[in-house]
Structures are given as C-alpha cells and as structure tokens.
C-alpha cells in the first residue's frame, strides 16, 4: 500500500523547496536515499563526537550528536538526538567562528547533502569549519519519514485516485513522535544548542531554499550569535510557501520564452507552447496507459502517464539547468506520443527527493497552511500546482493537526547583520521578487539576481565566491556581483543526444563546416 504522504511526493505536489541534484551528480555518485542507521544505543549519552565519514566524501569529518527534549516545554520528557557533522577547515583562521549550512526541503538532510555543500563551500572551508546539522525530523535526527512499500508501482499509479486523508492518518499512526514539535522554531533551538555545544562564538549562516527560513529565524531570535548570513533562494517570512504555484507557472513561461529566443531551439521546436498545451489537454481528459521498460530495472512495467506525472516531472526538471535543457525535447516528444524522456525525468525527480515527508508536513501545516488568506488562496488556486497543493494540504493538514504559529511569525526580519541574498531569475520555487520582499527591513543587506541561474544560485554561478568573500570580510559593502551576469547559459537538447547544432545530411556540409571553422 502506498502512504498518503508518500503518494503526495510521488505526485510532486508538495511545495518542495530543495536544491535539485544535477543529472551528472546522479551518475557520479549514488543519491543518498538509503536511510542512515539510527543509533539507538547512543540514547543515553548526552553528547558524543568522533571521527567519521559522510556519503561521497573521502575526508575524515567530526560527527556527533546532542540530546535535546522533543518538547522544550517538557525538558524532562522524551529526548531526541540531533546529529551534526563538522567539516574541518583546511587552515583555520579563527577557531571561534564557523559556517552553518542549512538544507532545504523542508525535510532534507543536511548531512546527506554534505558532498554538495563541500564542493560549493570549498573556498570557505579553506579557512572556516563548516557545520551541517540534520534538522529535527530529517536524516539521522529522528527522521519523520513515511516509507511506502510500493516503490516499483510508482509508475503505475494514478495519483488522482488517492485518499490523502486516509494515507496521511496511516503515516501518522506509524510515527513514534509528537509531530507537533517538529516545526522550525523548535529546530532553531536545537541549532543554537549545537552551536553552544561546539563552542563557536559566532556563526556565518548559509541557508538554501527552505533553509533561508531557518536562517531568518536565527536572525530574529539569536542575532548575537551571527557574523554574516547568506540567503540563497529566499523564502521571505512574509510569504507562505504554498504561494509557490505562481512561481512555477512563471518558470514555465520563462522556459518557453527562452526556447523561442534561442535560434536553435526555436528552429527545432517552433510550437513548444502548443505542444505543451496539447499534451496537457490530452492528459487532463484521461491518463495514457502503456507498457514501458522500467527506468531502473529495464523490466516491462505499466506506466500510467497522468497529468500529475507529466507536469510534476517537468516542474522538477526546472530546478537544475542540466535537466531544464532537456525539457523542450521532452515536451515535443510527448506531443508526438513518446513519453520516454518524461518517464526519465520523472524517475530522476522521484529518486532525488530524499525528503522526510512527516517533517515536511509539520512545517508546512504549522507555518504556511494556516496563514493563507482567502485572497491568496483564491489566487493560488488559479494555477495547476497551486490548486493541487491546496487540495492535498487541506486533507493532510487536517490529520496532522499542527497548532498554528503566532501571527508575528510572518513579520519581516529587521536587523543590521551583514546579509547577502541570492536569487535565480529562472527559479521555479523562489522567484527574485521573494528576495526583494525579504529585504524590506534589512539595513545591511544586498540582493543579487543571477540572470541565468535556477534554484540554488551558489551552486550554479560564482555565488559561492561571493559567500567566501562575505565570510572573509564580514561585510556586504565590497561584494561585486558582476560575475553573476556571465552568460553561462547552455544550449537546449535538440534531440535525445545533442546540444550542438545538428548538421544537415547535405553531402557538401562537412566541407562547408570546415570552411566555416578556418
């Protein structure tokens, strides 16, 4: 049986604000989907720390855990372990400071993404320790995951036939946790406890995607512990993440515009918008059922191509520039009845998730669902994804029963901590306008928009150098964002194999091309 939260993920209709691993990453390293062993025997010890290794990195790190109450109002009640990893600086410049990198989701494990953080923050790591904490409810820190056992039938399911309420209830019954304690504010107390435990006076923060909410809360509640803050793919406090539907629609429009402005893409796919609408309309009427080789096992398997799978796969492909470049080809093929590229993209997005859906629900239901105003609800309902999300969360949040956060939770963050905000113009989750919104009351902040980046600017541009500069100088005054505008755009896939202009079969062509090259 499939679990509700699980099917929700399958259907790709949660507001997921994570950084999508690139396609190449999938081949260079296995995706960290295997749940890490939970160390039950460590429960008695308050703190432990030892040398360890994390997935994808050969270097020795320091791992440890601290014990915190699940419910801070009952300090003697149930204790949970918050696991952290310290990636040591190569040549420490200041042992009193470190950079804390906060993952997205909500529900991603920071430790499982250590390799990505390490590569992106390599310059920072030359002189600063980097801390990764598995936020409560994710990764090794009492993960709230609802694992379904119907993984192989994911391609066959028709998402519209699911009873989210029943499945969510089943998931809730299986979890051994007070799910109402897994919101951002409690997690923030854990973060500060880890900082104090490790003995750092000041932290530099890097938050990506949902991690920017955690970083902003840190700015609100413990400004004295912070040296600098970087928000990458900003979710402003004033914004409910459920409003993401409009951002997705915007990113689709930008993609179609990009293709029509690109000579090669426009020539190959002149009717992209019509193709997209055509497939969408067909699938809205009825899903297409066919027999395909399973993307992983190669065995013949039933594929129910629903509108939800089609749009969900395309949406997730928008997260990374690499998969984004395949979208026009995928749409065009689908319009011609070939759903192979869509199936491939769908399989990618399925396995790249690694999101703890229980924790995801605790955050979204407590902090985003209940503050939707009727107007915003109306507006969100306009878009396909907004509509689907509202429908699903209406059912799952009724089961999850999270108390709403105070209204003041949504106030703009004020302060003068040096803050760097990064937005990607092509971002399908957190558009640049959200970054502007977060700037409202920040007096010492700079917001840069990378014109060719999607979600997670620092991973795709020189944004990581800006972070290294910020950490080194401790000020946003000198940051020069000119390099963000460098044209790093890559070509779109013109068929299933190439991104370069396809030479015509004309016999004279090779000579012509050599002549051109001389």
């Amino acid at each position: 049986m499939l679990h509700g939260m699980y099917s929700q993920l399958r259907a790709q209709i949660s507001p997921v604000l994570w950084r999508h691993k690139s396609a190449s990453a999938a081949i260079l390293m296995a995706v960290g989907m295997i749940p890490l062993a939970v160390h039950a025997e460590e429960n008695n010890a308050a703190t432990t720390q030892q040398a360890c290794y994390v997935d994808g990195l050969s270097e020795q790190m320091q791992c440890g855990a601290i014990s915190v109450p699940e419910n801070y109002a009952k300090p003697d009640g149930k204790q949970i372990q918050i696991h952290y990893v310290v990636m040591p600086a190569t040549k420490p410049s200041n042992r009193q400071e470190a950079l804390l990198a906060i993952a997205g989701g909500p529900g991603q494990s920071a430790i499982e993404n250590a390799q990505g953080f390490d590569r992106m923050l390599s310059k920072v790591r030359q002189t600063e320790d980097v801390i990764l904490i598995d936020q409560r409810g994710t990764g090794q820190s009492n993960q709230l995951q609802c694992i379904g056992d119907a993984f192989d039938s994911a391609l066959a399911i028709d998402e519209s036939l699911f009873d989210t309420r029943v499945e969510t209830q089943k998931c809730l019954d299986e979890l051994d946790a007070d799910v109402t304690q897994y919101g951002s504010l409690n997690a923030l107390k854990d973060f500060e406890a880890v900082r104090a435990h490790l003995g750092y006076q000041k932290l530099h923060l890097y938050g990506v995607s949902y991690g920017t909410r955690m970083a902003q809360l840190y700015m609100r509640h413990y400004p004295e512990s912070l040296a600098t803050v970087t928000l990458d793919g900003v979710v402003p406090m004033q914004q409910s993440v459920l409003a993401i539907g409009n951002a997705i629609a915007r990113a689709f429009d930008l993609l179609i515009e990009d293709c029509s402005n690109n000579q090669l893409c426009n020539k190959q796919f002149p009717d992209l918008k019509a193709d997209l609408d055509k497939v969408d309309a067909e699938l809205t009427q009825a899903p297409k059922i066919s027999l395909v080789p399973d993307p992983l096992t190669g065995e013949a398997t039933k594929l129910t191509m629903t509108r939800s799978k089609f749009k969900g796969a395309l949406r997730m492909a928008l997260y990374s520039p690499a998969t984004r470049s395949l979208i026009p080809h995928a749409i065009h093929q689908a319009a011609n009845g070939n759903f192979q590229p869509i199936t491939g993209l769908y399989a990618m997005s399925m396995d790249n998730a690694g999101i703890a859906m229980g924790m995801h629900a605790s955050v979204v239901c407590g902090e985003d669902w209940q503050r939707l105003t009727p107007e915003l609800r109306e507006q969100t309902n306009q878009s396909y994804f907004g509509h689907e999300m509202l429908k699903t969360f209406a059912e799952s949040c009724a089961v999850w029963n999270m108390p709403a956060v105070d209204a003041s939770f949504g106030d703009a963050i004020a302060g003068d901590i040096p803050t760097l905000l990064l937005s990607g113009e092509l971002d399908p989750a957190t558009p640049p306008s959200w970054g502007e919104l977060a700037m409202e009351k920040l007096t010492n902040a700079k917001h840069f928009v990378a014109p060719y980046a999607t979600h997670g600017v620092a991973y795709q541009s020189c944004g990581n150098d800006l972070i290294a500069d910020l950490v080194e100088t401790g000020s946003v005054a000198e940051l020069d964002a000119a390099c963000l505008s460098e044209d790093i755009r890559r070509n779109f896939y013109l068929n299933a194999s190439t991104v370069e202009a396809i030479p015509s079969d004309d016999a004279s062509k090779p000579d012509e091309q050599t002549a051109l090259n001389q």
Partner: protein
Amino acid sequence: MSNKIISMIRKELIDAARDKRSVMAGLYYAVGTPLLMCGMFFLLIGQLTSPEDLNIKIDNAKGAPDLVKFLASRGITHGESDAKDTKDIQLIISDEYAANMAKGLSAEVTLIADASNEKLQNSIRRLERSLQEYSGEMGSLRLIARGIDPRVMQPIKVNVKDEATPDSKAGMILGLATMTMIYAVFISGMNLAIDTSAGERERNSLALLLSHPVSTWEIVIAKITAVTIFAMVGLVLTLLISKVAYSFVPWQELGFAVSVNTSFIVMMLLVGLPVAIMAACLQLFVSFMAKSFKEAQSYITIVLMVPMMLAMAASYNIAPEAIQWLPISGQMQALIEFIKGRELPLTQIAVSSAFTLTIATGLAIGMQKSLKSEKIVFGL
C-alpha cells in the same frame, strides 16, 4: 656537577660568545633555513596550482560552442597562443564533433600537452576532469531522454575512506622540515666544536688548560656541554622561527595545513637532546683528531654527510627496515609518525636514543683517552 665543571662550561661559553662571527655563522643556519624553506614553498605552490583563469589553445571552438561555454564556466578559456599566460595545452575539437554528437555517438576531442611538465600537470588534470564532467552530464541526460535512470551506468559505487588527517597529509613537507631541524643541531654547534678543540690547540691554550688541576674527564664534559647548549639554542631558534614563518605559507591551496604546534616543539626538543649530545661528541672528537683548524673543518663537513644521509633516508622512506633503530633516522621516523597523528613509537625512540647516547659515550671516552696523548694535545 662539580663547581669546576660549571666554571669550565662558563669559560667555554664566554670564549664562544667572544667570537661573534662563528656564533653568527652557526645561527645563520638556524634562522635562515626555515625562512628559505618557506620562500621555496611559496614559489612551489604558485607553480603547482592551476591558475583561477586557465587559458589554453582551443582549436575549432566553433565546432562545439556548448562545450566551449561549459569549459568557460569552469574558468578554462581560449587564449591567444602568443599571450604570456596561455598554457601550453591544446584542445582540438574534431570536425565531425557536432555530427557524431547528433547521432548519439562519441564526439572526439584531442588533448595535446606534455604530461611530464610538472607546471602543467594540475592544469591538464583540471581540463580532463572538466571534460569528464561534461561527458558524464551529457551521458546522464542522454539516458534520461531514453527513459533510463542514469544510475544504471554506475554499477559500482566506490566509497573511499581516507584515513589521512590534515596533519598527515602535510607529512611529506613536515618530514623535510624536520630534517632541516635535526640538521640545525649539527650546524649550530659546529663552529664552537672546532673552535674549542682544534682552535684552542692552535691558539696553544689547550695545553695551558690541561696543565690546570682538572681531570681530562672534566674538560671533555665541559666542552661537550657547551657545544650541546649551542646546538640546542640553534634548535629552539629554528623551531620558533618555523612556527611563525610556516603559518604565513598558503598551505590551504594544496589542501592541507602545516603547523608547528607546541606539542611538536616539545617533542622535537626532547628527541633532539640526545642527538645534540651525540653531535657535540662527534664534532669534538673529529676536531681533536684533525691536525689543524682547517683540517677539522673539512673533516667535519665530510662526517656530517652521515647524519644527513640517515635523515634523508628516514624522511623519504627509501632505506631498509634496519634504519628505524639507528640514531637520527630512528628519531626522525618516530617524529614523522608523531606529526601524522599516529601512535608514538616509544620503543623506536628509546632504542635509537639509547644507541645515540651509546655512540656519544664511546666518542667521549675516546676523547678523554686522546687528551692524554701528546700527539693529540700538540697536534703532532
């Protein structure tokens, strides 16, 4: 220690300090070597690391605009071949690149470079890595476009757990540094050793000293102690200057850090003391054997080759097992283990230090005997 010996040590040290030139000559090494080493590493790091913007020659760039753009995003761009900062690496994109790519075949590029050129190696590797990354990314997307999960292309996932610590990665460099530090023990006391033996004899003050009511043993011990003190002062200076100077080198660009920390300094001083005593005995013995000051200088230079070679053998790990028990090489190896954060091999230190002290005692006895011979005292 008797008062006589202490006053003789004072006499030796005052004598030595009067000859400012030879004091300075000994200390030049202690001060200069760490600085020179740092200067060398500064240059080396600059030479070995690939520049942020790597300019190479790209032929037929128009044949693969997307690849060229990808390389540019990795900081690798086409530079004019006569430009000074263009590396001697050539990348040729084949004429059929686009045609093969479109058919789903392998598109060819050719990399031409001299792999034996150390200055290019990092840049070549960086280019290869970037090309592989591009190829891997395209390969994955080609599979996705065919409805296949790219993970099937990676049947084996290799998890490497590197047991090296940041300190042990620096082992090679610290091994070299340790060698120069051990050597400081020999060099710093050398001038004094010659001056107080062969020099004293040439100035005819040795015979005078022997005519005083002191035993030859007391004379020998006083001279050894004075030379040892000089050697140790040299070692302390080398360590202190290394501690400061090494922290300025941008080691992080090589991916590790070299730090001369307090525990290393303490360890070095403890291990260095027996070596310093032996060095003093050896140098004094050789100088007494020599007929003149000049001769002593040349003998000592030759004799110093032995510890030098032992130290080298230890730091490069090129010699047979037996050297781990020998003086100097044994202590060196133990120190390198200590630097790498491994367990300190106490037996090794104990045996090699005992060996060192035995040699020192033997030499001291020899010296004591020889000071009773007229041949030695008058340099006949």
